[in-house]
């Protein structure tokens, strides 16, 4: 076998062409890894909002809480059904209203949708992962709100002591900021359920009911009970499934977008790798001929140049992957395609994403380097004799 140091040193000697080709590959890996990391970030952000034992009950036919209406009397019924199946400690469940307000962004021109969730006073007891990190909880029945940490400072009025308009001439004062392990709730405003209902004219109903069962295994029984009563016209789904459905649209869109960008960039980078390797082969035909003359087989020449292309692409791949991991520090906002509200999320790398991104570079290197390697293997040993 031709020693690998022969290939590596040849790449090092031709620094600028190697760097240019590796940069192209690095870019593809970067874009590809970032897209996957974003999709993962979104899924995780939304996924964090899901507890395995929580069930979301909405009106049949509603895809999101935003479009669902559950009447107050149905809320009591659902809570009673949950208690019958076996619910967790108090509170058994909460009926919440969802609304959307348009807020001015800070730093950039424009407005964006922000979700306002009308919550009951025991919301923090129902969601133990949510904690006030600054300020205090809102007083029940008042015009006070707490905001998720993802909103802080990003919209006008989104800071402790500041206020925003829930409706025209209906100012709400921010008194606290909460964290929820990076979940999508962190991109919400939590106000009193009665205040929100009143402001949006939704008295007598809520958007959804969430109940916490004492075991995730009781879901099926609960679902049968809720959905069995046709007059209620409600559906029950695990919070995890609900959230997944919410993030699916955005995640799929991102993956398709990232995949497409990576594909087109990838074709470009692969052509770049092919050109680089072709130049290497053309410039070294006498060396290759000499190796053939010395007795190295066509196969070992082919292998040698594939290795060279692989080393080139892996170099690019690792650089791209490291740069992508660096994006972990960047936070982004995006419209949730499920609810059309803004959520804040980050790039979240996983070993699988990094390995597949670097794997992609290896694949591009091998594919792009294949024809030049075949060309190298076809160099006649007689080339060695040409002066």
């Amino acid at each position, binding site marked *: *076998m*031709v*020693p690998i*140091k*022969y290939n590596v*040193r*040849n790449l*090092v*000697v031709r620094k600028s062409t190697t760097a240019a080709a590796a940069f192209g590959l690095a870019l593809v890996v970067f874009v590809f890894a970032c897209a996957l990391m974003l999709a993962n970030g979104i899924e995780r952000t939304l996924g964090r909002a899901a507890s395995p034992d929580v069930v979301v009950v909405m009106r049949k036919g509603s895809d999101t809480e935003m479009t669902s209406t559950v009447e107050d009397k149905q809320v009591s019924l659902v809570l009673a059904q949950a208690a019958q199946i076996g619910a967790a400690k108090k509170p058994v469940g909460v009926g919440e209203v969802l609304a959307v307000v348009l807020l001015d962004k800070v730093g950039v021109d424009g407005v964006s949708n922000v979700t306002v969730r009308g919550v009951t006073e025991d919301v923090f007891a129902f969601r133990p992962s949510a904690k006030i990190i600054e300020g205090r909880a809102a007083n029940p029945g008042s015009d006070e709100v707490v905001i998720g940490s993802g909103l802080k400072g990003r919209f006008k009025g989104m800071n402790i002591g500041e206020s925003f308009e829930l409706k025209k001439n209906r100012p709400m004062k921010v008194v606290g900021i909460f964290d929820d392990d990076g979940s999508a709730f962190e991109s919400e405003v939590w106000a009193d359920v009665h205040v929100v209902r009143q402001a949006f004219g939704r008295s007598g109903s809520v958007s959804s009911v969430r109940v916490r069962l004492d075991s995730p295994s009781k879901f099926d029984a609960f679902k049968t009970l809720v959905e069995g009563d046709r007059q209620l016209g409600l559906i029950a789904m695990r919070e995890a499934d609900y959230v997944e459905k919410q993030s699916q649209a955005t995640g799929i869109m991102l993956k398709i977008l990232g995949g497409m960008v990576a594909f087109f960039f990838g074709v470009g980078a692969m052509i770049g790798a092919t050109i680089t390797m072709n130049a290497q082969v053309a410039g070294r035909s*006498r*060396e290759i001929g*000499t*190796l*053939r*003359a*010395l*007795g*190295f*087989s*066509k196969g070992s020449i082919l292998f040698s140049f594939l290795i060279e292309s692989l080393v080139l692409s892996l170099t690019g791949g690792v650089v791209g992957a490291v740069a992508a991991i660096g994006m972990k520090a960047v936070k982004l906002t995006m419209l949730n395609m499920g609810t059309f509200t803004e959520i804040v999320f980050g790039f979240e790398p996983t070993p699988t994403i990094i390995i597949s991104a670097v794997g992609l570079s290896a694949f591009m290197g091998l594919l792009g380097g294949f024809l030049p390697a075949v060309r190298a293997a076809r160099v*006649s*040993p*007689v080339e*060695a*004799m040409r*002066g």
Partner: protein
Amino acid sequence: MSTESTNERTSKPNAEAKAMQSDVPEQYRKNATPERGKAIIELSGVTKTFFRGKEPLTVLDGLSLSIEEGGFEALMGPSGSGKSTLLNLIAGLDRPTSGKAIIAGNDIGAMSDGELAKFRARHIGFIFQSYNLMPVLTARENVELPLLLTKLSSTERRKRAETALRVTGLENRMDHYPRQLSGGQEQRVAIARAIVHDPTILVCDEPTGDLDRKSADDILELLTKLNVDFKKTILMVTHDPAAADRATITRHLNKGRLE
């Protein structure tokens, strides 16, 4: 080893050969006692025709030739006379269009590409006009290349490469890259590479063509030593009459035929 010492050493070939062979591995001595008179290269009625478009071009025209084991022969002739083509056939780089070429017992015309590669790795040591060293490998690594096709351990490969470099007088240049060497030194590395796997035949294509007179003489001295002391069969294509003088037999090729 300096140039001077090379001359000095070759002036007493027997002592030198003994001294040299004491640290030469067994493999080197295997072919050191050729059977004089036995033909190692046998060509009969060899024709080589190339096609330029549809136009056939006969470069070798029914050529017959026999070279004895342990011989040192020079091949001369004007450009286009077929010297290189003949050398390529003997080295197993190419096959004859017709006729038979038996080299070290192998019928070149009947071998596949893979078989020819193995044949070259085993039997042929190449010395090129432009040295053909790998610029990114050190002298030692260049010399080790043919040994990568053997089953030798890396320690053994290294040892043999160093011995070959000592034989060619480059023991102090082992870790130098080709660009750090003079033309003469580069050709010595190439010669070390050509002998490191103890081939049956050394094929030299204008070995002094790119060198000044002094370096050329040193290289010719080294080739003579390899022939006299190490009993290597050498076939050398050259334009240089001084080079041809070193050979025991000089053949002239003209228009694809031996004169």
